[in-house]
């Protein structure tokens, strides 16, 4: 929060610290929303640029991460909307770019390969969700945002977020069922089967 205040007073160094601290959060959201590394990089850079330009509007009562994610989510939703109406289909290109190669140095390459396939499968399914539902899912499961934080970030009501999450998860499960075969995910120790 000190960096935020310093950045609001015009310190570029403090803003650079903020970029360092939040780059993974913002990039991950952009990647999950857009589905390819190049677009995610561009969207994340644009998010930080917009945050820099409108830093004076940031209300310090809100969590800074939520504010940043809100900018990123809205930017990605707009970008997806534009992409939808563009003449050129980018699906093939996206699928090609979004392949995540397994880490060859991992202790168990087979397990790593399985996890990588599973993540890739999830990413493919995410792309089939509605833009707003996708943003809600990513904020909920990757960024641990509460329903009220998601509502604030996406300018929805809490009940709308609940219903979107519910619908998106049902849809995701349906797609998961249809798209098989896929590797069975490993459950974490002491974790509820609902997770």
């Amino acid at each position, binding site marked *: 929060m000190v960096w935020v205040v310093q950045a609001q007073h015009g310190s*570029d160094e403090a803003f*650079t610290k903020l*970029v*360092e601290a939040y*780059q*993974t*959060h913002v*990039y*991950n959201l952009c*990647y*999950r929303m857009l589905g390819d*590394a190049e677009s*995610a*990089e561009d969207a*994340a*850079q644009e998010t*930080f*640029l917009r945050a*820099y330009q409108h830093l004076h509007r940031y209300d310090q009562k809100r969590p800074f991460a939520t504010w940043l994610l809100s900018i990123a989510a809205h930017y990605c939703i707009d970008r997806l909307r534009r992409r939808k109406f563009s003449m050129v289909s980018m699906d093939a290109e996206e699928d090609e770019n979004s392949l995540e190669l397994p880490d060859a140095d991992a202790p168990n390459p087979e397990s790593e390969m399985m*996890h990588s396939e*599973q*993540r890739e*499968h*999830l990413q493919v*399914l995410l792309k089939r969700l509605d833009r707003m539902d996708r943003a809600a*899912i990513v904020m909920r*499961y*990757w960024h641990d945002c509460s329903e009220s934080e998601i509502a604030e970030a996406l300018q929805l009501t809490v009940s709308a977020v609940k219903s979107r999450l*519910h619908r998106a*998860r*049902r849809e*995701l*499960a*349906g797609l*998961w*069922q249809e798209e098989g075969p896929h590797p*069975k*995910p*490993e*459950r*974490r120790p002491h*974790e*509820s*089967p*609902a*997770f």
Partner: protein
Amino acid sequence: MNHRPFEDWLLEDQHLTSDQERELQAHLRTCTTCSAIAESNLALHSARMISPTAGFVSRFEVRLIEHRNATRIRQIIGTTILVLAGLALVYWFASPFIQEVMRSPADWITNVVGDFLFILTSVQAFSEVSRVFTHLLSDFISPIGWLVILFLVSGLGVVEVLSIWQFTRTPQGV
């Protein structure tokens, strides 16, 4: 137990008691829908964050500098256009006077000085006349007369305001 509560437990991420968990496990073995929900839930919860490639901050700094330069260039271009447009407008309005001045500067200066002196003497004369007039009137009209005049002028003002209000209130051209 039917299918519905299990699906709700899974979709709402509910924390389950050990009995509920056992029932759910038994249900998952027979229900493919709930099994798919549980698997997708698990995949969501075990999904990892993806980091940008190294040098993200440096790339951002470069982009920020480029953005600032572009903004500065836009501001310079905008200001230049505004100043040029203003000068063109001033020249357009002032060109008749400028042409006149250029034709014979001495005549123009004489005219300007003459106009200035005329305005000055007119103002002086008008103030002198009004001073004399008010002095004379104050002798002829009593204070009650002044009150009556003031009352009449105010009344006329009120009547005018009311009539304008009435006129604007009525829809026109219908």
